[in-house]
């Protein structure tokens, strides 16, 4: 299989690069070791778009963060993903810390973040009644926003796919070999060839970089534990509330999500294992302790799930977006604010490749994409009309999040459709609510089995090896007899 460009990794960065490359007349293929897009760092993070005051002025990180943040709102309309510019607050908990708050404000102004203000306690309490009693002031960033990271990644990927990008899932890259024509990429699913490679491999980006570049980089998987609170906690905070950043990152934030939950996290624990997304008792305890600092009476008892994600922390704490070796383009070290910067990284990386290869623009490039229709956004009359046409929109499958069968069918049937329980969950929210899929998982499994025409025993949570069912009732008695 020959392509102009192979992108390694279908996280938000790889999908963004694919989306911006899809405007050119180049053949592009995204190789992903997991069974779906958005399975690594992109799926387990704070789900916020940083305004851009935090990244150190003068860095690429700062530039791309501010640019990404500026692009996001228009993009959310063009590509139909949830976006809410709720604004963010960095809460200063003592007068001694105020110089650091001012420094943060000044850094943000230099970065070009619009609308930054330092607000005093009175105004802060009016904006955020549950803020800590010891809060003295805050940095107010009206351009801070929240998104659904799955939707955003899927939007980039689906839009790229609709514009001709190929996606190969369950395909792990094993080696890169330089050839006269470019690259020979060996995977567990055969050999791919390409003129150029984009390295968007997240916590594995250093492995691929170091295999072909002279100057090595080093990525540490930095784990962040999170708790997600039930809809019942909606409104506890109205903005993304940070504490003043310390040496280990931005501390623990408390933020609304676009779907009406409250998210709390992350911790920052360096680990060795690039797949080490397990939460630990220490991590969760640490989170609980830190979570109470900037706000008071955080209803952690309403936790519906906890999870952990890994940030790809590069030693230099800077984004590496460049042609690091001939025809090898890095998008490496993409840790926070990577989600915020993703559109800008996609734009920049696609630009670098275009500078190099000068493809023509596709005349029929479609920059828009429609998301999965959520009937809850319709009027009753519109929803009824939809049910008449497609009765599946009248059948609730996930009670907690009110997800209809119609949405699940859409999620399975659309480009890069869901193949697993988690795939359906990330696209529709079925199973993401307070019962955590207790009621709906057998029904979603049935729908997947029917739609994909595979036996229920092959339906997985998230790809091969995660089968949900191991056999049938009493099969052991039959097997014993068969053997005899």
């Amino acid at each position, binding site marked *: 299989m020959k392509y102009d460009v192979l992108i390694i990794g279908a996280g938000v960065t790889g999908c963004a690069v694919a989306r911006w490359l899809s405007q050119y007349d180049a053949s592009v293929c995204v190789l992903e070791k997991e069974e779906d897009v958005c399975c690594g760092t992109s799926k387990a993070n704070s789900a916020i778009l940083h305004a851009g005051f935090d990244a150190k002025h003068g860095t690429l990180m700062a530039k791309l963060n501010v640019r990404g943040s500026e692009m996001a709102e228009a993009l959310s309309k063009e590509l139909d993903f949830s976006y809410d510019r709720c604004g963010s607050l960095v809460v200063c908990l003592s007068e001694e810390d105020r110089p650091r708050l001012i420094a943060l404000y000044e850094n943000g102004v230099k970065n070009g973040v619009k609308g930054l203000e330092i607000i005093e306690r009175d105004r802060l309490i009016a904006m955020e009644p549950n803020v800590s009693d010891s809060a003295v002031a805050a940095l107010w960033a009206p351009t801070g926003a929240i998104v659904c990271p799955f939707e955003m990644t899927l939007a980039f990927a689906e839009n790229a796919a609709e514009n001709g990008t190929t996606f190969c899932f369950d395909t792990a890259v094993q080696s890169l070999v330089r050839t006269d024509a470019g690259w020979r990429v060996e995977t567990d699913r055969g050999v791919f060839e390409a003129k150029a490679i984009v390295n968007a491999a997240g916590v594995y980006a250093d492995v691929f970089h170091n295999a072909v570049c002279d100057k090595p980089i080093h990525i540490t998987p930095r784990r962040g534990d999170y*708790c*997600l609170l039930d809809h*019942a906690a909606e409104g506890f905070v109205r903005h993304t509330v940070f504490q003043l950043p310390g040496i280990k990152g931005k501390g623990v934030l408390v933020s609304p999500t676009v779907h009406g939950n409250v998210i709390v996290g992350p911790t920052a624990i360096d680990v060795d294992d690039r*797949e080490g*997304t*397990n*939460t*630990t*008792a220490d*991590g*969760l305890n640490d989170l609980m302790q830190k979570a109470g600092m900037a706000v008071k009476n955080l209803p952690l008892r309403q*936790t*519906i*799930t*906890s*999870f952990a994600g890994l940030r790809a922390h590069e030693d230099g704490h800077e984004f590496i977006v460049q042609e690091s070796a001939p025809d090898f383009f890095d998008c490496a070290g993409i840790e926070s604010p990577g989600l915020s910067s993703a559109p800008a990284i996609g734009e920049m990386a696609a630009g670098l490749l275009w500078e190099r290869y000068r493809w023509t623009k596709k005349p029929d490039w479609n920059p828009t994409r429609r998301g999965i229709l959520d009937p809850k956004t319709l009027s*009753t009359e519109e*929803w*009824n009309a939809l*049910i*008449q046409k497609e*009765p*599946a929109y*009248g*059948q*609730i499958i996930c*009670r*907690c999040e*009110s997800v209809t069968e119609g949405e699940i069918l859409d999620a399975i049937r659309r480009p890069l459709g869901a193949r697993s329980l988690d795939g359906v969950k990330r696209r529709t929210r079925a199973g993401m609510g*307070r*019962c*955590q*899929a*207790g*009621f709906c*998982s*057998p029904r979603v499994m049935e729908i997947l089995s029917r739609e994909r025409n595979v036996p*229920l*025993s092959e339906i*997985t*949570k*998230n*790809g*091969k*090896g*995660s*089968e*949900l*069912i*191991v*056999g*049938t*009732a*009493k*099969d*052991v*008695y039959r097997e014993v007899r068969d053997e005899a």
Partner: protein
Amino acid sequence: MKHDLIILGGGPAGLAAAIAAYDAGVRDLLIVERDKELGGILNQCIHNGFGLHTFKEELTGPEYAARFIAGVRERNIPYLLNTMALHVSPDKVVTLMNRTDGIQTVEAKAILLAMGCRERSRGALNIPGYRPAGIYSAGTAQRLVNMEGFLPGREIVILGSGDIGLIMARRLTLEGAKVKVVAELMPYSGGLKRNIVQCLDDYGIPLKLSHTVVDIRGRKRVEGVTIAAVDERLKPIPGTEEDYDCDTLLLSCGLIPENELSREMGVAINPVTNGPRVNESLETSIPGVFAAGNVLHVHDLVDFVSEEAAAAGRAAAAYIAAGDAERHEIPIRFEGGVRYTVPATIDPAFVRDALTVRFRVGSVMKNRVVRVLMDGEEVGKRRRQIMAPGEMEEVKLTRAQFDAHPALGELLIRIEEA
């Protein structure tokens, strides 16, 4: 569309309430069920032990449900299947949705909440570790095994010794899986003794009290869990960890009444039960809205669900006949280890022939007496050799007792050492 009574839920509570309301004269009523058949969770509870109080015989869940479904059919009580109540407004307008009728709003004179409960999830328990396939709530596994005929795993560890977990230990063993251990956080089991003997001891399955799961291994599918002992504060004790290889972790860690619709419509919720606060008529803070069964408070015996729901059905019928009335409610006070009472308040004027007050205790207590006092005067007492959080308790009051205290100012339930 309009109905006198809409019953939300066609499980044991909804069915019993519908029959009782009908028999009390309500003719224009509707049961709304979200699943494809009536009977609710009983359809997947294929074990026996149901109905000893109601029918004086031991039935399985589907058999128990069938008797009530037959009662509904005999009376031609209408019901909608595969229908979701999306919304209920405080003025009792219900928004329903299904495939054939789309979205419709239905007005009701009275509403009876019978939505049941859900299981506490892994997330709510905050168990650390990976998040692989193979972690099921006991009820989900029960559905997969009993209704779909699948085996969710071959080597099983169960956290929580509630009755569903114990029942599933036996079911999975019989169906061909190996249940390695049942761990229980508390120093006592939340399940019935009989279930511990007949579901665990019969099959040599160890029960580890004061233990919990502290780690889940396996990235794609569960490969093992770590269990540790906990101290008096229920915190894991370092050094007591034991690893179990398994492909499945089953959770049976408590049930939570499903009151999202109730909350949305503004019904006041008792934080102890997570169910509505109700008066002697099992009426919530919104007049004409009643609640019964596991949506009100989690029961351990379905017989009492049916009994409670029938009382709610009769009360709804009385409300439909009489309309809003002026009320003078007093709270039921409790002492000595009672965690809550259902009802929480009473207006003696509305007590009919008898009133059952159900409650639970917060810890295991031996050799006690439950006293009922009206304005300080003892009107009833009950010896209890043992009281446990897992077993619902009740006291029964009669109309005559209320008549003897015409100006009742305080009703007190007190547990004392005998």
